[in-house]
């Protein structure tokens, strides 16, 4: 279960890629940089959503930001054992998961600080923040 195909590479590790904030996403990335996970909430129909966009996905209403608890459950996951792109190949094996936040939206993330073979659908997880640039952070998740 732990076979990998990482080619040998003597170059220094490449950092995790950082997002480039745009008009819709800048508050989201900035909040993550500051250690808070935000979701968008529709002012009209109260639906919660991510990824950030300018209107509500359910009704096209206006949206506002609210802070999320940072807790959720694993909807699904995979253990990536082959990826030739840097920096990801240096991480192999690593867990890519879809997490359903308590507030409703589903986000993709990496599950860290856990044995990849111990991850299960439905397990409780919580956000752990990491700064990736001067203007952005990300939410990794760990077992809760």
């Amino acid at each position: 279960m732990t076979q990998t195909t990482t080619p040998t590479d003597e170059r220094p590790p490449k950092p995790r890629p950082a997002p480039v904030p745009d008009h819709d996403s800048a508050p989201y990335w900035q909040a993550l940089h500051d250690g808070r996970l935000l979701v968008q909430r529709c002012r009209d129909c109260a639906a919660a959503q991510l990824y950030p966009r300018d209107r509500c996905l359910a009704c096209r209403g206006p949206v506002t930001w609210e802070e999320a608890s940072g807790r959720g459950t694993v909807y699904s996951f995979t253990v990536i054992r082959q990826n030739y792109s840097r920096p990801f190949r240096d991480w192999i094996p690593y867990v890519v998961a879809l997490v359903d936040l308590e507030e409703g939206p589903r986000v993709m993330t990496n599950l860290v600080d856990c044995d990849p073979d111990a991850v299960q659908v439905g397990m409780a997880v919580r956000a752990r923040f990491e700064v990736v640039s001067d203007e952005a952070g990300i939410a990794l998740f760990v077992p809760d």
Partner: protein
Amino acid sequence: MSQNGRRAVIVGVATSDYPKLPEMSEHAVHGQAADRALADAGLTMAGVDGFASTGFFPMYATGVAEYLGLHPTYYDETNAGGASFEVLAEHAAYAIEAGAAEVVLITYGSIQLSQMGRRLGTGGGGGSGFAPGPAIYDALWGNTLVGSYALAARRHMDQFGTTAEQLASVAVTMRAHAAGNPQAQERDPITVEDVVSSRLVADPLHKLDCCVISDGGGACVMTTAERAADLETTPIYVLGAAHATTHHMNISSMPDLTVSPAAQCGPLAFARAGIGPAEIDVAQLYDSFTITVVLTVEDLGFCAKGEGGAFVENGGLGLGGRLPTNTDGGGLSACHPGMRGMFLIVEAVRQLRGQGGATQVPDARIAVAHGTGGMLSTGATLILGKEAP
């Protein structure tokens, strides 16, 4: 389907050489398939007034049309990834029936294997520096193309108890069919044990749960039933068609990872054809990964949601099985140049004409070809029949 008394039929089909074409340009693959499909129809380029194709840059179809020497007055390059060619054929049927075109040539060509080698298969998740717009939300985490389908497979297994062995049985059956296809990329028989003991690429998908990566292409020619009466070929009728999409390339935006767009377009296509899944004699279902087929048989209504694993195991998709599927060996074993949908149409037509060779389904009268594209993002269903509806 029909308007103005005009009814669309497929009169010519062909595949190019495959699976390895190091000496050919992408356009040459289109051209070889086009020449063969027109010859199969008993037509020439001079009679073609409509053209459709698609690829990975804008105005792709116009480029291929120029290469072929065509100046078409109907053209289409709708890109739905692996489902593109079912959509293009549906659109062509509408155009022909509306009187907007008389003879539509649809071509596909790819030299993905020779151009890029095997890396494309897992690199689809993108890397740093190239994740425009919303793509960034999935690109940050090192997810891959295989990883996206693995997320669907894991969810299906957890929600419905589907097993790795059931998924593997799809690959085993496709390989058995490939043994009857002299062109197939992989022809040596495999067992369920071979699949589940092959290297994990992205849990729970193993190497043998994934399609091959190939060069190749295909083409089909469509016209009216009236015109087909003057041709030597046996016309194949488009009985019904539909397509759907739920999200773009972020699997995190897929509403339910166990329900593909086939759940929308499948029932629509059957309703438009006026038949049900039980009347299908042979199926050509996009098999980018084993899980793709399990989701598709459920969503098209061949079994209930969650029962796809049981449906496909023990030769359920084999000749004489519940639903003979991918009789050419599919993308899992025969050929997968990136957007395989054209191969589904070609093989469906060959089966309905009785040209299926070693894997001919006896007396096949009605076939379904269903393409799936992107990250389970698009679906397109074509229901084809050898008799006029």
